[in-house]
């Protein structure tokens, strides 16, 4: 399979009064056609800025640098604003956490969906309406004709997110970037929306980059995942591999924090990661995680720690060898 999106050494810098903030550092990942990549991390790890950086939607002050962002063979870093605008909503769709902020409250759903298509394609308004109706049915909305005439505020949160998804599908994109698409929704609705996304993805053969903090979602949705911590990818690989044998202490810590019904003993202490995320203003010497890492030693404070590739997919950012890492983790567990 060929990579649809290939990001190499992406950096984002934001100059602030106190110094330069490096929210995204040296990001390298790729997504194949029809595949799902989850970018997972806690608040402030740079995952949302990454999605904005890909689509050149960063705040004005922010500076984006990198080797390349290849989308279907073309480098997005070299594209003009105009060309990027043609790409967004057309070949790449975006879904955000709060659909209300991306839907215009003063236009009907139908109007907005049609505009989306008319902007990028040479079609008549009738054809656009037909596609809108078809897609609304596709995302499970009953009475699509009636819904097209409604305004965003007349819909519930779950319905709005469905509309948002239908809207991003208007031009038949190759890639969808979804930033926490279900965080604002209830659990039952969340499962429905994720299921819908997965089904549509299979049907239309789209690639999906899903950005989330929820490891449950990652486990169920992703083919591949990238774990971000303090602006860097600390571990990536196939979802079964990473969940099965996490190599980075941070990934391991995160996984130990959530109770798994049937596996975690009820009422037992959950794992935790002591400490807080370091400031990303200025350069951090050494490993970003070392202050919170149970295995940190002197070498961790020296120089930068590079992403170590084990094979094509699996990589992690730690000085310990895979076998060491696993052995140390078991040791720690035993000690508790």
């Amino acid at each position, binding site marked *: 399979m060929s990579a649809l999106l290939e990001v190499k050494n992406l950096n984002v810098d934001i100059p602030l009064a106190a110094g330069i903030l490096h929210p995204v550092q040296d990001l390298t990942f790729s997504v194949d056609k029809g595949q799902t990549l989850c970018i997972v991390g806690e608040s402030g790890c740079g995952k949302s800025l990454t999605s904005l950086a890909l689509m050149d939607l960063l705040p004005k002050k922010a500076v984006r640098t990198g080797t390349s962002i290849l989308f279907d063979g073309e480098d997005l870093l070299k594209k003009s604003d105009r060309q990027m605008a043609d790409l967004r909503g057309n070949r790449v769709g975006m879904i955000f956490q709060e659909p209300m902020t991306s839907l215009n409250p003063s236009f009907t759903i139908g109007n907005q969906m049609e505009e989306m298509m008319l902007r990028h394609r040479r079609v008549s308004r009738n054809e656009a309406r037909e596609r809108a109706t078809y897609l609304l049915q596709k995302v499970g909305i009953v009475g699509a004709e009636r819904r097209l005439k409604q305004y965003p505020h007349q819909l519930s949160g779950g319905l709005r997110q469905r509309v948002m998804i239908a809207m991003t599908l208007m031009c038949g994109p190759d890639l969808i970037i979804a930033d926490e698409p279900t965080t604002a929704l209830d659990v039952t609705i969340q499962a429905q929306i994720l299921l819908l996304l997965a089904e549509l993805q299979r049907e239309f053969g789209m690639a999906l980059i899903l950005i989330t903090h929820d490891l449950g979602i990652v486990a169920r949705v992703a083919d591949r995942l990238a774990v971000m911590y303090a602006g860097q990818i600390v571990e990536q690989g196939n979802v079964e591999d990473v969940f099965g044998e996490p190599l980075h202490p941070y990934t391991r810590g995160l996984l130990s924090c959530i109770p798994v019904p049937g596996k975690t003993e009820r009422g037992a202490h959950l794992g935790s990661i*002591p400490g*807080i995320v370091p*400031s990303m203003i200025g350069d951090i010497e050494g490993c970003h995680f070392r*202050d919170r890492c149970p295995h940190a030693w002197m070498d961790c404070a020296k120089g930068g720690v590079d992403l170590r590739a084990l094979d094509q997919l699996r990589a992690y950012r730690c000085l310990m060898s895979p076998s060491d890492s696993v052995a140390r983790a078991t040791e720690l567990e035993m000690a508790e």
Partner: protein
Amino acid sequence: MAPSDKAIATDGAGVATARMPSIETVMQPNAATMLARRILGHRSFMVAAIIMAGLILTAIFAPLLAPHDPLDQVLIRRLIPPIWAEKGQWEHLLGTDMMGRDYLSRMIYGARVSLLIGFCAMMISGVLGTVMGVCAGYFGGRVDMVITFLLTTRLTLPVVMVSLALVAVVGGSLQTVIIILGCLLWDRFTVVMRSATMQVRSLDYVRAASAIGCSTRRIIFSEILPNILGSLLVIATFEIAHAVLLEAALSFLGLGVQPPTPSWGLMVSEGKDYMLFEPYLVMLPGLAIFTLVLAINLLGDGARDIFAPENRN
């Protein structure tokens, strides 16, 4: 290990600070230092603050600063131009008016009147408006309905017309102008305090305070008021400017402060007959009003940026 020890051991900050110096860079410095830094860094606020401080000091120390008695008429020395004009005299730096009174002294005493009226009118309307706004926002329901009704009623009254009419009936004086303006300018206080209170009221810390058992008075004074003080300060400055302008207008129309009290508005009015021959008579007090109002407004703008950035726009 006792559970309490464990709680500490698993605590993020407790462990982290022991070996992580970088934590201090994440933490913000002391709130007061931050505030001071924001104030000092705000250029237009600082400029306005210096101008205001100058004007206030001038008003307070007017008797010491004024070279002459502002009411002293010396008819043979009337209409002496300011010193930059050809016939200027050092004894009267800003010249004299048509009654032969020293213009600089009158300007200095005028600052007193303007600031006094602006400040007092703002205090009266501020107290009225804040009480009403906070009550409406906190209690809601009937109270809110009544206060909102009062507010709409007040907003239908044209301020200048009503104050003109009232002054015409009662007769103009410093006190009447202050009271009338105070009773007319509370609308903006009420509007803003009402919405600010509603916003804060729905926050969890107010709920937590009532769950603790705090009395309504305590909740309003220690949980709500400190958090809407920023917005209050901002409107207060704007209302001072508003009152200063209205006083000037009233005095210009002859219904505000009565002669011979030196008031900038009155001075413009008195000078207007000589405007074509002696333009400084109008320009100087005009410039003073302009500077004062500008400084107050800049101060308010700056205060909004500093204390209540969420209210911008």
